[in-house]
């Protein structure tokens, strides 16, 4: 009887220590919610991981990351966010725009959310204020939405004689309304007309370019929207095909053969999102982490494309450009 007791004790102790040892390097899990697929996100993810490393975290070593990709289907974001929230991740990173942040905010009121977006998080109702976010959210805004009027200005400078410009809007985007209003005001100031075109799927892109050509628009100004930003290659191809100068928010666009881009430096915004995620893992409260705005808004011009489109880039524009692709 006593021997059996002893054996049971030993067995119990072994059973208690073994999983304990297995759990010793238990790693905090970051839930990573993104609206697109991993491939176009590769550069952003690298920046994010750099930011994590700043706070002392390396994926696979002392932190695990659960990825949820909406693969361009933004309606899946709420379900994916709920899934991550259900897994009780240590921190939920909602990256790549307002839709992911809003989906994450709906999914949980307890898990800290670090967002990365181009819009104004206060205007979108994500946080109460920049300096004191409140609630369980904080994050980075890249200013891309705010500068969409500058894109119109650059396009106007490029084609000073054009009387009208086409504006590409994703009607599903939560920021579309404010961006269009912003652009209308800028157009008034510049004395040009705007031709608003809606597109929320890839299938509508071609029609958009046809419409712009038909309207003899001086060029297309893309509003800030992740859906457009992550489809820079298709858009660049269409631009060349239709000989239509265009400006988007993401440097991916001129890199892929588009003409111009003006927007917040996403490398910086993703890197800071990574840093904030690390600080949350280190125990800091989101209310102590003010929302950061990126400091760098970059203008990228592809001179090859300009030449292909027979567009002469004025020297003022070239001198303002952060990167010129020749």
């Amino acid at each position, binding site marked *: 009887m006593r021997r059996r007791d002893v054996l049971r004790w030993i067995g119990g102790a072994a059973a208690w220590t073994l999983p304990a040892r297995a759990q010793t390097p238990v790693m905090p899990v970051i839930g990573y919610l993104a609206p697109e697929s991993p491939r176009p996100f590769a550069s952003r993810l690298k920046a994010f991981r750099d930011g994590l490393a700043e706070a002392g975290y390396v994926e696979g070593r002392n932190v695990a990351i659960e990825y949820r990709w909406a693969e361009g289907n933004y309606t899946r974001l709420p379900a994916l966010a709920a899934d991550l929230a259900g897994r009780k991740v240590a921190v939920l990173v909602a990256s790549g725009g307002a839709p992911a942040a809003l989906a994450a905010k709906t999914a949980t009121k307890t898990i800290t959310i670090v967002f990365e977006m181009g819009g104004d998080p206060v205007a979108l109702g994500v946080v109460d204020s920049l300096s004191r976010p409140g609630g369980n959210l904080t994050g980075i805004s890249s200013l891309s939405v705010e500068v969409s009027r500058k894109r119109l200005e650059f396009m106007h400078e490029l084609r000073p004689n054009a009387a009208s410009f086409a504006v590409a809007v994703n009607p599903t985007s939560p920021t579309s309304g404010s961006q269009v209003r912003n652009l209308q005001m800028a157009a008034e100031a510049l004395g040009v007309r705007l031709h608003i075109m809606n597109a929320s799927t890839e299938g509508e892109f071609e029609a958009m370019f046809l419409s712009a050509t038909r309207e003899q628009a001086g060029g297309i100004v893309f509003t800030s929207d992740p859906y457009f930003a992550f489809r820079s290659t298709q858009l660049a191809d269409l631009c060349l095909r239709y000989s239509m100068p265009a400006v988007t928010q993401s440097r991916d666009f001129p890199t892929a053969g588009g003409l111009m881009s003006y927007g917040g430096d996403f490398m910086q915004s993703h890197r800071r999102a990574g840093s904030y995620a690390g600080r949350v893992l280190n125990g800091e409260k989101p209310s102590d982490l003010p929302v950061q*705005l990126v400091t760098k808004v970059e203008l990228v011009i592809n001179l090859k494309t300009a030449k292909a489109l027979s567009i002469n880039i004025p020297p003022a524009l070239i001198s303002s450009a952060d990167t010129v692709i020749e």
Partner: protein
Amino acid sequence: MTRQRLGFGGLFLKYFLVLFLAVVIPLATNGISEAWLGYRDQRTRLEQLLGVEARSAGAKIQGFLDGITDQLGWLVQLPWTEEPDERRRIDALRLLRQVPAIASLTLLDGTSRERLYVSRIGLNRSESRTDRSADEAVAGVRSARLWYGKVSYYRDSEPYMTLAISGNRPSVGVVVAEVNLKLIWDVIAAIKIGQTGQAFVLDGPGRLVAHPDISLVLRGADESTLAPLREIREAVRRAGADVATGWDADGIAVAAAAAPVVGPDWTIVVEQPLSEAFRPIYAALWRTLGLLLAGGVFACLLAFILARRMTKPIHLLEEGTQRIGAGQFNYRIEIKTGDELQRLADSFNAMAAELAVSQERQERIAKLKRFLAPQVAELVDRAGDDDVLEGRRTEVVAVFCDLRGFTAFSAKVAPEEVMSLLSEYYDALGRIITKYEATLTSFSGDGLMVLVNAPVPVADPALKAVDLAVEMQLSVQDLVAGWQRQGYRIGFGVGLAKGSATVGRIGYESRFDYTAIGSVVNLAARLCASATDREILTDATVANEVNGKRALNPMGLRLIKGYDEKLLVYRVSLPEKPSAT
């Protein structure tokens, strides 16, 4: 046990304390003063070090601002014309690209009208010609060439500052720049004070301009964030020449110094955790404390050993003197210190040895004196051995004497009277025996026996014995005269004989007597017995030896008890006048 405890409480403790303090006080004084001076030096060094760090950090912040103003200077080189200035527009756009901290630029001509506005966020404007002379920045720069505005928080979060610069003449106009101070982060984050120290910048009213933790800056005018930072700046201001200490936002104690950033009236504060800044001080203090402790332990040990070494011989001396005083003369004090104490112990030992010898001698003499005259006893003792007392056969003169009629007298009178008479009688005889250095062998009641020539041989023993007997007789006769006047019929007779006898000590344990055995003793006793009052009878041997020297009367042959033949007996004549003594 009690004495031991007394020793530890008394002399040992005094010695111990004196020796311990003699080592510890200079050690502690030296250690403490050195630690204090070291501490002051380190503090001064730290103050200087932090001061240098603060000025260097201030220079870097100044450098950041100077970089901007230098660039802006290029825009106010040439005078404005009424025409739009395309070159200047390109310069402005290029500058915007060149200096990321500048959010927007406004260029005004000599009449303070806006000619150009370029921005990263908002739409650019050209030739709006709005009169901006009422602007604070424009008014400021007109008087100072370089004007720094107040720090303000864009949307309560990002710190911005307006900076204006004018050219060397009014016609070149003014450039007003909005500077995003968040960009100082690159500079401030690169400043490291020691390993973990940091720097931050406050403006005049105490708002946070730059901090390595950008999230603190972005909290804007948040009092709870700013209070500890202002407190450190106040601490530095209060500390003056000394190094300032305070607590940072996380409650960590820090040492801090500050330096002004001149243009915009900012203060840069550098801080270093005290644990790091004072590490050399603490290390030195611990080292000193360790040395002091080690010194204290060493002093304690040294004092203990020395005090023991000093008090132990004294204890030994104390114990030795007590034992010797108690009569233990064979006790020796063992002290091998090679100093005065050893000499003292040796003296004690010598004294004890002498006391032992002296006591032994006293005892021996006391024994000898029982049967030897004191001077003879001394003589025998000085000879160093008792061999003279050993049994041997030698020529002796035995002298017997006793009182006549004493037994009848003693039966009649009171014992006190008897004892008083005997006392007088022996006093007189004793003096004479001592005088003649004769050996008293025994006395009983009114009679006694004396030996001459044993144990110490004397010259002419027979003559000496006769003189002795005569003096005894004369002396006792004086007494007898007195006694007879009292009505006591007491007489005194003496008998002496010379011959060979066995002499030596007899007795047991410590009760020894010296005696002679032989017919000469019997003869003398018989002669004494047959002597009447006032008579001294001798045998022929004695008579022959003193013949011609003392007057003797032959008494003819007498039958002596114990002898078969009659012996010739002589009577010693007494002098007529009793004047021998």
